[in-house]
């Protein structure tokens, strides 16, 4: 019998070699208690969280928590069904109404995760004979959506407008075209030149889908994302987003002004063939989304945090993913996986949690320590974090 697991032998071996050096397994950390959006107990010690997607710190917002508790009491623990059968409760509609208002768009569709939103929308709208033109650094959920559909998939070099345009121009006459972009690319924390790219896409007759998972709530005057910031949101046909980042719970969505959008509820399989989100989740999400509409001060503080950390780490000699802070993600480039894991562990001992990101999730086979800031990090915490990085970086020999 062929062992179907033999294809994973290389990875098993790499993992064993890494753990044999004695470092703590970076992919097995347990948050024993969570004290606030920015602090938890890990391995029995109080730890500053700098590797969550809790950008706007909504997870412990009293109104959000109260909405969830009330929904548990009034609607029970779960829906036990699909959105198109018994799984659409008042809360799902509240959530979709809140999204329509948040984005100023006509239609909103809530999925059970952000992954499923990309998977479902992309695989359903781009079918056989259509072309998907996408950035090579796209998130796994976008790639999986491409793979699940029957469209021709054409990647282009990251953020390269000319490469994108060339490919669009080569697509056969009459074929349907979908351009897929992200507002913030989460590995390096860089943003896309959406205004220019969307113009090129539209000039070449393509529809445009933008994943704003990492920008919602934070970037743009109303927190609608990078497209809003660059003044091109009205040219985006489909915005994909998630509740598991700034919104502070779990779930995904697509908002659109397409007049026929509602048909997606019947034809999109990752929407139809899965259970809908629990009532407590959609009520927390709806409450959080409405509060994010009026979170200008928090957005301003988060930008301050991002700029302070970026400058602080750059001044200490760390190599960062972007020259200037472009989002709430500051990515610190590690020389290799082994020293990345050592640095990660040294930071954890200092009392700081960051994300260790490694291939294949990262571009150009880089190992990254990804720091994501929260609007609830205080200015003092950010200074503490810079000090922790300096000590750990010197101990491991990276700076």
């Amino acid at each position, binding site marked *: 019998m062929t062992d179907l697991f033999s294809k994973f032998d290389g990875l098993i071996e790499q993992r064993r070699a890494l753990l044999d050096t004695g470092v703590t397994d970076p992919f097995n950390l347990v948050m024993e208690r969570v004290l606030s959006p920015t602090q938890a107990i890990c391995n029995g010690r109080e730890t500053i969280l700098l590797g969550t997607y809790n950008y706007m710190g909504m997870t412990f917002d009293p109104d959000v928590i109260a909405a969830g508790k009330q929904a548990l009491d009034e609607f029970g623990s779960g829906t036990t069904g699909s959105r198109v059968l018994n799984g659409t409760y008042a809360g799902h509609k509240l959530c979709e109404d809140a999204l329509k208002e948040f984005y100023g768009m006509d239609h909103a569709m809530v999925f059970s995760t952000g992954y499923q939103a990309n998977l479902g929308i992309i695989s359903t709208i781009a079918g056989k004979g259509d072309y998907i033109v996408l950035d090579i650094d796209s998130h796994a959920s976008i790639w999986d959506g491409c793979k699940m559909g029957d469209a021709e998939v054409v990647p282009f070099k990251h953020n390269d407008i000319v490469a994108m345009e060339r490919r669009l121009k080569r697509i056969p006459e009459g074929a349907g075209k979908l351009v897929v972009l992200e507002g913030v690319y989460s590995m390096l924390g860089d943003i896309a030149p959406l205004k220019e790219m969307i113009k090129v896409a539209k000039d070449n007759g393509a529809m445009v889908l933008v994943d704003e998972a990492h920008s919602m709530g934070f970037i743009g005057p109303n927190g609608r994302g990078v497209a809003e910031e660059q003044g091109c949101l009205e040219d985006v046909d489909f915005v994909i987003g998630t509740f598991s980042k700034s919104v502070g719970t779990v779930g995904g969505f697509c908002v659109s002004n397409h007049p026929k959008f509602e048909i997606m509820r019947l034809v999109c399989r990752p929407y139809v063939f899965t259970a809908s989100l629990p009532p407590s989740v959609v009520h927390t999400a709806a409450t959080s989304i409405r509060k994010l509409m009026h979170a200008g001060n928090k957005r301003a503080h988060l930008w301050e945090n991002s700029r302070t950390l970026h400058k602080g780490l750059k001044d200490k000699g760390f190599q960062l993913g972007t020259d200037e802070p472009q989002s709430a993600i500051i990515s610190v480039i590690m020389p290799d996986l082994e020293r990345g894991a050592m640095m990660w562990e040294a930071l954890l001992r200092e009392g700081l949690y960051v994300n260790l990101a490694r291939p294949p999730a990262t571009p150009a*086979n880089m190992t990254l320590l990804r720091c994501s800031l929260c609007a609830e990090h205080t200015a003092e915490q950010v200074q503490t974090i810079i000090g922790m990085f300096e000590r750990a970086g010197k101990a491991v020999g990276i700076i």
Partner: protein
Amino acid sequence: MDRAATAAKIAEVIAPFNKKGVAITDATTFAGDLEWDSLTVMDFVAAIEDEFDIIISMNQQAEIETYGQLIDAVTKLQG
């Protein structure tokens, strides 16, 4: 462009990507013999696409394992 002319052009494009100086025949495989990772494949595909002004979609790339198959595909894609 016929197969021979296409093959000659592809040979020019591939040279800077063949860092190990592997002797390339129609049976040479990209993943196995040339040991290219996915990033190198992407850069090479982009170079071929730009040289011939064609699209080789991911779907089509999945069918191309050897150098000979690439020449056949590019010859055909030029129509």
